[in-house]
């Protein structure tokens, strides 16, 4: 499979009174075709700026980027990609159907049936003659998704597709995005909430202050979580034994209840064996995975360390 998006040291900087600010700093990304790629980062991290550069709406200061094999800004690419901005606003005087027909005409498509089909796909077929001003946020987002499918795109950019939506709308949108992958499309989602993307993304990149701090398969990134093992009827001897064996773990015993908090990578089976041998009873095993916040915090710490280290 080829790459849908490739960027090399893509940089966008603005001059402010305080000096030059790199909103996106030497960003290098690679998105495979056919995957759902999550672009994560807190607000103001440079996610939207990156997407705008990839779309050719703004121009990079430095570096290069390719979308579907063409240099960014190439209008030909626009025929096979689509973009759903964050919290978009549509011409409110139009109905859903009119809006779709308007966007279709921008592609030179004159296919009203297709517009209807797409509205049906996003479950708006009963509301397509209502004006957009009467749409709820979720409906607006869905009509946005419908418009983004008009050109049967190979690559979709979805900027915070679930921002400001209620949980039911979340689920609907999520399912739609998953269906895009099933149809063989590449989806590039930006979000500041890990929980949104972790369920659907194949791979993610995490950006903070314009710099990619982590990139890779979600599972890989989240590896390094901890596990809590609780067992009853455990003797003090066993607890002491475990304390001696496990370096990277906290072991506590209270009225015969043992709580072991250990690294995911540690040898859990050995603990289970030890408990069983001592006639103890395992009550629960709770894996506590890494959260986005953890990665952020880690990365920020790491970066600070770098900076401090560099300065020192």
């Amino acid at each position, binding site marked *: 499979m080829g790459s849908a998006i490739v960027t090399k040291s893509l940089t966008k900087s603005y001059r402010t009174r305080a000096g030059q600010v790199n909103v996106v700093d030497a960003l290098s990304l690679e998105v495979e075709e056919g995957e759902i790629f999550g672009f994560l980062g807190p607000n103001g991290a440079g996610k939207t700026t990156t997407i*705008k550069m990839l*779309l*050719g*709406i*703004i*121009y990079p200061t430095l570096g290069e980027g390719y979308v579907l094999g063409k240099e960014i800004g190439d*209008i*030909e690419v*626009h*025929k096979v*990609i*689509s*973009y*759903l*901005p*964050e*919290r*978009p*606003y*549509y*011409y409110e*005087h*139009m109905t859903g159907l009119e809006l779709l027909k*308007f*966007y279709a*005409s*921008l*592609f*030179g498509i004159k296919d009203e049936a297709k517009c209807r089909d797409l509205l049906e796909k996003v479950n708006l077929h009963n509301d397509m003659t209502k004006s957009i001003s009467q749409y709820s946020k979720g409906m607006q987002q869905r009509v*946005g998704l419908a*418009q983004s499918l008009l*050109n049967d795109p190979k690559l979709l*950019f979805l900027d915070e597709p679930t921002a400001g939506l209620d949980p039911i709308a979340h689920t609907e949108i999520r399912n739609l995005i998953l269906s895009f992958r099933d149809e063989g499309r590449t989806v590039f989602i930006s979000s500041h909430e890990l929980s949104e993307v972790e369920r659907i993304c194949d791979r993610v990149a995490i950006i903070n202050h314009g710099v990619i701090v982590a990139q890779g398969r979600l599972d890989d990134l989240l590896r390094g979580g901890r596990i809590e093992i609780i067992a009853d009827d455990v003797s003090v001897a066993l607890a002491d034994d475990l304390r001696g064996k496990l370096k990277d773990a906290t072991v506590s015993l209270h009225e015969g209840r043992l709580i072991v908090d250990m690294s995911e990578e540690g040898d859990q089976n050995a603990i289970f064996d030890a408990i069983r041998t001592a006639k103890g009873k395992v009550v629960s095993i709770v894996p506590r995975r890494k959260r986005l916040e953890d990665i952020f915090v880690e990365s920020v710490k790491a970066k600070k360390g770098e900076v401090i280290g560099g300065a020192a």
Partner: protein
Amino acid sequence: MKAIMAIASTTVGEAIRRRVLLVILLVGLFFVMAAPGLSVLSARQELTVLKSLVLGVIQLTSAVIAIVLTVYMLPNEIERRTIYTILSKPVLRWQFLVGKYLGAVAALGIMMSLMTVVMLLMFVIQVQVRDVNRLSELVQGPAMFFIQMSLLAAVGIFFSTFVSPLVNFFLTGGIYMMGSLFNPMFETMASNPNMSGFAKNAAWLVNAMLPNFADFNIQNRIINPESVIQNPMVHYMNLTVYGLIYIAVLLIAGILVFDRREV
């Protein structure tokens, strides 16, 4: 071309629903209809004052509409992020700008036509003007105003590619005033024997460069039908061509700026 037309028609749909424009239009229409009540004073030449008032109201209203309509055009698109969904489609920036402009002109045309129709009805019903020639003569005013306002709209669109709406409002209004004023000013300077040759040449240059809105102020000949104009249609044609070329100037300049603009 399809994209341009689609953007234009959407712009029209939006413009004719903008409340502030509708309020301005309604005020204009009100004054057009109320004008006969204001100018009862001069029975001898009632029509002179009436025509000057009505044409003036139409011109003033149209100018305000043209400015208000265009100064917000691009900033609104950017602020509401609608521009992103459009520019991420296979739409070039110049197509977007031209589409927006054509939409603005079409919306202006609709509103000015409405005012013109009301004006004609007012003259037919309230003032009992039945002569088709006189009525068609009256329409020449708004027709030339339309070219003037299209030029004004192009000024507004041009500035809206790089300045904020408020600044643009005064900028476009200022250009309109200068363009309305410079012709007579130039004439005064040119006929002033005390002016230096350099100043005269500079004035000549400015006169050739400015969008000269004064050129389109042809209402005098309509208000005062005694004035005999030779080949008015040729003059109107020239005016239209002049307006169109200047509009092209502003649009190309706007496109060049907008193309580099970070939105």
